[in-house]
């Protein structure tokens, strides 16, 4: 996407630069309109954008939770300035500031808030999804490898916003089972 944008930018700049050449382009107005407005103005963007749009929709399709796959269910509730996580597989468990999930399995995170709007964002695992009062938004993510990932809240929430972060700990199978039993390694 960046390369494409750079190419288009380059093209526009070259056209701009060439206009300073010391000669007038020939041909009457109708011809120029055909080239500049119908060709470059209408045709060219339509083509590029069509392609881009198709690409975006295909990618987007893949990121949306799908029925049929069995996903791990967790809930994330934000409040100023702390995240609380609960787990469908272990109803008694609640963690604060750290979300635990298994690796290699789809996870559905039900995102809610107890006060203002926040946004759940773990850049290396998925895009943002907002926590909106009265609504529950579900984010599907899947971590390939165990490890620790940084997450932040990405919607301005007042004075404590700067440090409003959390962590995601991704476990392998045995680690996940241990966590659910309430005995982290």
């Amino acid at each position, binding site marked *: *996407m960046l390369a494409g944008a750079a190419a288009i930018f380059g093209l526009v700049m070259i056209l701009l630069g060439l*206009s300073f050449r010391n000669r007038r382009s020939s041909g009457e107005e109708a011809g120029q309109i055909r080239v500049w407005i119908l060709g470059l*103005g209408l045709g060219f963007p339509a083509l590029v954008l069509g392609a881009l749009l198709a690409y975006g929709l295909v*990618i987007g399709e893949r990121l949306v939770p799908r029925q049929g796959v069995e996903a791990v269910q967790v809930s994330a509730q934000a409040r100023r300035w702390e995240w609380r996580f609960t787990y469908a597989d272990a109803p008694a468990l609640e963690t604060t500031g750290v979300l635990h999930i298994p690796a290699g399995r789809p996870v559905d995170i039900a995102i809610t808030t107890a006060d203002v709007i926040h946004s759940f964002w773990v850049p290396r695992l998925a*895009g943002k999804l907002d926590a*909106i*009062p*009265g609504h529950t938004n579900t984010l599907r993510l899947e971590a390939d490898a165990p490890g620790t990932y940084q997450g932040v809240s990405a919607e301005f929430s007042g004075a404590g*916003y700067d440090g409003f972060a959390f962590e995601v700990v991704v476990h392998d199978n045995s680690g996940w089972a241990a966590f659910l039993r309430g005995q982290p390694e």
Partner: protein
Amino acid sequence: MRALERHRKLSAIWASETGFRGWFSTVNHNDLGRMFLFTAFLFFIIGGLLAMLIRVQLATPHSAFAGPEIYNQIFTMHGTVMMFLFAIPTFEGLAIYLLPKLLGTRDLAFPRLTAYGFWCYAFGGTMLIVAMVFGIAPDGGWFMYPPLSSAIHSPGINADFWLIGITFVEISAIAAAVEITVSVLKYRAPGMSLEKMPIFAWYALVTALMILTGFPPLILGSVLLELERAFGLPFFQADLGGDSLLWQHLFWLFGHPEVYIIFLPAAGVISTVLPVMCRTTLLGYGWIVSAALALAFLSFGLWVHHMFTTGIPHLGLAFFSAASTLVAVPTGVQIFAWIGTMWKGRPELHLPMLHILGFFVTFVIGGLTGVMVAVVPFDWQAHDTAFITAHLHYVLFGGFVFPIFAGIYYWLPHFTGRRQFFRLGELAFALVFSGFHITFLAMHWAGLLGQRRRISAYAPEDGWTTINLISSVGSFILAIGIAMILIDVLLHVFTARRSRRNPWNASTLEWAMITPAPAYTFASLPQVSSRDPLAREPELATTLARGEGFLGTPRDGLRETLAVDSASGRPEMHVLYPANTRLPIIMSAVTGLFFLSLLLKFYWIVPLALAGVIVLAWKWVRSLGLRDDPAMQPVGHDLNLPSSATVERAPGWWGSVFLLTANGTFFAALLFGFAFLWTVAPGWPPPVWFTPSVAELALGVAGAVIAPLAMRRAIRRNRAGDAPLFSVLIALSGSAVLGIACAALMLRAPAPTEHAYGSTLLVLGGYGLFHAIIAALMGGFLARQIRCGYTSAKRRAAFPIVALWVKYTSITGAIILLAAHLSGMLS
């Protein structure tokens, strides 16, 4: 009469009072345009200083410069000042100053309204700045999302300053938009048909129409949020049937068009200046007009792309993503039409051209990153990071500030009557250009590395330290460049020499006059027969100064002009303008009192202020009445025109049409809010429904039906020479009955503070009651005019105006009653 004598006589008629007292009583667009621009640039400097503070704060990790409480005010005020107090008013000022000159007429449609708008802007802006000085400025970010901005989470007065101050300023935007729309459609030189209009007028028209339909949702949102904060009506509280998403919809329903409201006037400047710089004419005039219209239209279908991360349903995402990329097509048409214009002509690198090149580079990058964030998966990552702030500055600075600088240098000879000769301007451009790109390229990068927007501090471990330092250094280069432009402009004003007329050899009418522009603008009005009048008749300025156009003979100290048929530009009526008056500033001061008493919660002043506004409005319109039937007015060239008091569609009728367009949008947004809460908000159905009453409904609807019918009858009787008074009184009573039904709805709205359903009914009823009162007051005013002999079969212009308002009141009132009572019956 010699040209000089005409100049003296006309100047005496049109001049404002001498000295600073003139500022308070002037209604002349020459003064007001300058006052708007001057004030807007003051705010630009304030906003720029705030930007510097932001960059100082972010230059180093763990910055101790300002804590979050102060920093949050700084960036909120920076965004707010730049968007509402700089960008929009700059457009208004430019359009107010230029349009009459470009269109070949002497002033805008409603000079007193121009002045009223200016003072609302000045007072409202001052309110916000005062709040900032006292450290109680809004701090919720420029889009003020509730519940963060609701009373529970922002208990202070800070958010109220935003909601009330910005609404006050918005009055001026609506006033200017009505003004500009009617002026472009009706106040042009004879013979200037729509397709002969200068391109800037098209852009101004499209922008003004966008303001009329784009701002009302925000005004509504602000009113609702202020009602929630002040009186606990829970429109945005999820546990009480409200929904904070409603605010986001209303805000971005305004916020996205706002971007184009800012860009389009700048595009108008480019379309005007660029061909002159290239010694040619604009390529594809018709295409550019269509592109601007398409852009305006499309931009109302895009707002949801600001909400891609709120959990919008999948199909919605696809639709709005497609629409958001689609909008790049009309933008592309304009860009390539301009480049084609450059190919067609021979571009010369004067200062305005440099800034236009700055525009091209910057705006194209901004457009490309814009297309990138329209792709949903990318936006899920980039949203709310510095990438977005960088993108929006490429669009706003590239798409607005560079073109405005081009415009300043282009029209500077017009304002000061002198011409630039320093090299300072070139150096300043180089600094602004490089400083800008250093600042914001770096911010793109920081955003991709995960730096969120609106943070006041970050840690060294984040790895953003160097990038932020580079960005801050760039912003200081940028600031120095802008300061140099300011100095350059001041130097021009104070030291440069007088220029010849039309220094750029432009072909538009604003150069067909002496500079600085005289108070009367044109000594006589031209007959226009092409899109480039000065190219055809280079001596036009002298011809007009000799009084050889229309209205060349000053008469009886009257400010005269003529209005034309919208499409063809055929002269249609003779118009007299009001003279200097302090009424606008007093009226806006009383309006300010209204807002201030709301802000400070001195609620007992509110009705007093409202009564003051009504009295002043009454005075305002009363001065338009004529005692006797005016004769046909000679305007020169053997042409006689009817006076505007004797036509069916007077300027006031046109003004009402467009004011009601804005009002109708407000009402539609309110209905949208009702439907949205009902279907989307979590806390529905409400615990208690409204108890419908067939009697109230029938009575109100009967009043709504009778009122416009009676007004129609009044018009017919008046035209036939019969007494219309009785019919007008019937219409007044009809509106009053409708008002009573709305008042009953308000009284019986179920527990307005306990559920958003009741609050919405309360507001709907209030809307209906408010308009019923206006309609009844207008009916009362008309009845008085009839009794005192200010109307006749010829002097009939007031009737259709009142009829229009009565009809609007009836339609909206009936819808309100139906919506309320049916909702009660359905449950």
